[in-house]
């Protein structure tokens, strides 16, 4: 029991940090530009593919640097030549634009690398077991992932709260005209934010390529859960996204380990459920069976009870 608890706790923290790594760029863009970027997961996927290709050519460590930079440049181009023009059409236009972009990126990836998953093994440099816990190995790439995730959090937090550029970025969201009047180049600030968000997605992609499968449906696989993190954490809150990631990671992981259903609970409480009750089917679903759905349940409840999310400053 202790064994399963400790291993589950570790797995939960790892999964939580993975989620935060995936969603930090999205949080940044959403909170600083007000753009709900549906193409975020697609840029993440590009990061995975770029790092695969660059890794093949010149090795993993250069890829860890170059792939995010490439993604950042692509993000800058998307903002400069796409979003900026769409921006006039308001939020729906922006959302539809990024939504379409996600499809384009998927087709692009399919054309270049094919429909099948790529063989993207963990590079030898980080393919070893960091430590063992009750005979369960902990791979080094997961350690690197945790490190990157925490570093992202610290970097973003410091950059936004403690630097001048961070103040300008925050001001540009709510008072773009005032910021422009003070002599700051507001469009350039937006390009920078979008590029940074995309670069973070790209960096997540480098590691995500090992944790997931490098294939064209990668973006669709991780897309929904990333939105859950951001909404749950609260609009515009980095710390909220971090807490939400950890919450989802740990709740979901422990839920998988619970092999009991509502029916067991009711029976333990001596509440009889008749064998013909139409709800019996529902009651007898094990918690483990529903675990991966729990984040979405949390999302729905959160939107009803507290639309601004855990630490959000304004409603969705």
């Amino acid at each position: 029991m202790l064994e399963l608890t400790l291993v589950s706790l570790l797995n939960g923290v790892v999964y939580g940090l993975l989620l935060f790594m995936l969603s930090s760029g999205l949080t940044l863009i959403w909170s600083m530009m007000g753009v709900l970027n549906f193409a975020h997961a697609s840029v993440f996927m590009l990061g995975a593919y770029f790092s695969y290709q660059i890794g093949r050519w010149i090795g993993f460590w250069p890829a860890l640097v170059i792939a995010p930079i490439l993604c950042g440049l692509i993000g800058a181009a998307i903002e400069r030549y796409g979003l900026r023009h769409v921006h006039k059409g308001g939020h729906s236009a922006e959302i539809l634009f990024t939504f379409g972009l996600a499809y384009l990126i998927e087709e692009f990836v399919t054309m270049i690398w094919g429909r099948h998953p790529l063989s993207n093994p963990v590079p030898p440099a980080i393919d070893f077991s960091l430590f063992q816990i009750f005979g369960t190995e902990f791979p080094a790439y997961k350690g690197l992932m945790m490190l990157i995730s925490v570093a992202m959090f610290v970097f973003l937090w410091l950059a936004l709260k403690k630097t001048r550029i961070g103040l300008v970025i925050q001001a540009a969201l709510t008072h773009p005209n005032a910021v422009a009047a003070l002599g700051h180049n507001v469009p350039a600030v937006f390009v920078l934010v979008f590029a940074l968000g995309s670069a973070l997605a790209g960096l997540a992609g480098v590691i995500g390529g090992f944790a997931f499968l490098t294939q064209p449906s990668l973006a669709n696989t991780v897309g929904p859960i990333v939105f859950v993190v951001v909404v749950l954490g609260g609009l515009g809150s980095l710390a909220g996204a971090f807490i939400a990631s950890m919450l989802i990671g740990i709740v979901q992981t422990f839920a998988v380990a619970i092999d009991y259903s509502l029916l067991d609970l009711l029976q333990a409480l001596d509440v009889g459920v008749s064998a013909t009750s139409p709800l019996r089917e529902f009651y007898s679903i094990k918690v483990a069976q529903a675990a991966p759905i729990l984040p979405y349940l949390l999302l729905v409840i959160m939107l009803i009870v507290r639309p601004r999310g855990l630490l959000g400053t304004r409603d969705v």
Partner: protein
Amino acid sequence: MRVSLRSSLTAFALAGAMYAAAAPADLKFAYIDPLSGGAASAGILGQKHMQFFVDKINAAGGVNGEKITLLVYDSKVSPQETLIVLKKAIDEGARYVLQGNGSSVAHAITDAVLKHNERNPGEEVLYFNYAAVDPALTNEKCNFWHFRFDADADMKMAALADAIKKTPKIKKVYLINQDYSFGHAVSAAAKRMLKEKRPDIEIVGDEFHPLMKVQDFSPYVAKIKASGAQAVITGNWSNDMLLLIKAGKDAGLDVSWYTFYAGALGAPSAIGKDGVGVVKQVSEWHKNVAPTLDPDAAAYEKRFTQKEDDFAFWRIKTMWAMFVAAANKAKSNDPVKVALALEGMKMDTPLGPVEMRADNHQLLQPLYVSTMSDKVKYDVEDTGVGFMTDVKIDAEATRLPTVCKMDRPS
């Protein structure tokens, strides 16, 4: 006005030319499978196999003097969408329907074909199913017009159980499946057949998880590990199988994976060397069943050279061979006569005798349980990894009881 008149005339002329090109009495087969969306890789691979054998038959002069034309339609793995294109295919003259991906689609086709044939005597359509494995299609829901060339889920599970039976070191088995009809069918069949073949085995887990919703399988791996299982049986496919095996490798989990779908469609690429010695699959063929590669498989791979284009569906070869044999025996390409000739037909193949059961139209063919290996003569998907046979189960041994009762044309 002149322009539009001319362009419409051109359109007419073009349409006429196309009609003329298709006019000689070709034998039309409609291939209906996913060609877009997430399952497209399976549909496109099947299409290439079909085209290869159609071209081969045509090059040899066709069947009963008729050349075969393959009409291709996108099912989008949707029963509704499929019914629309099936209608279109029949309107365009298709008398044979080929499909494989998605048992829900297969149910829609078999129902629609049955109704069509009842209402249109003399214009019957036959349905050749090369991959939809729901046992119901040759049991409760069977009909005379449906023929299945793939082993159904129960037959495949029986083969896996046979392989486990011959592995005495396996004492505890963990079942993990997707939470939908197929996953539940696999779990039920596994419990039934293990009990029958190896009553001493303890089933230490019977897990269901939502379909394609799990990003991280580590918690499941932790449970498998805690259960002490030596083998895991899973009907999972695509992401749900690949991420599961990946999470197992990350945690250093020491089990054998008994799978249905680890042999093709990108799975070997994604699993790679991690699967060597531990990932097993059940299939009707793999590249190393014989010392040298089958000439058709070799010719196919010469024509389709992409990494994704591996020859994978041996049953499609068997299907065409049996169709040609049945049409020759019937001396006609008429679907009713071909169907009557196909029922109960026995044939020798390079892998051994096969039989199309007369009672439920299920093909009996040899099945192989094989293990991933990096010491093979022929690898898959250019990965350096291929499969080696553990156990071969002869066609006759795969026969299972059926509840099928079908009406035959008189």
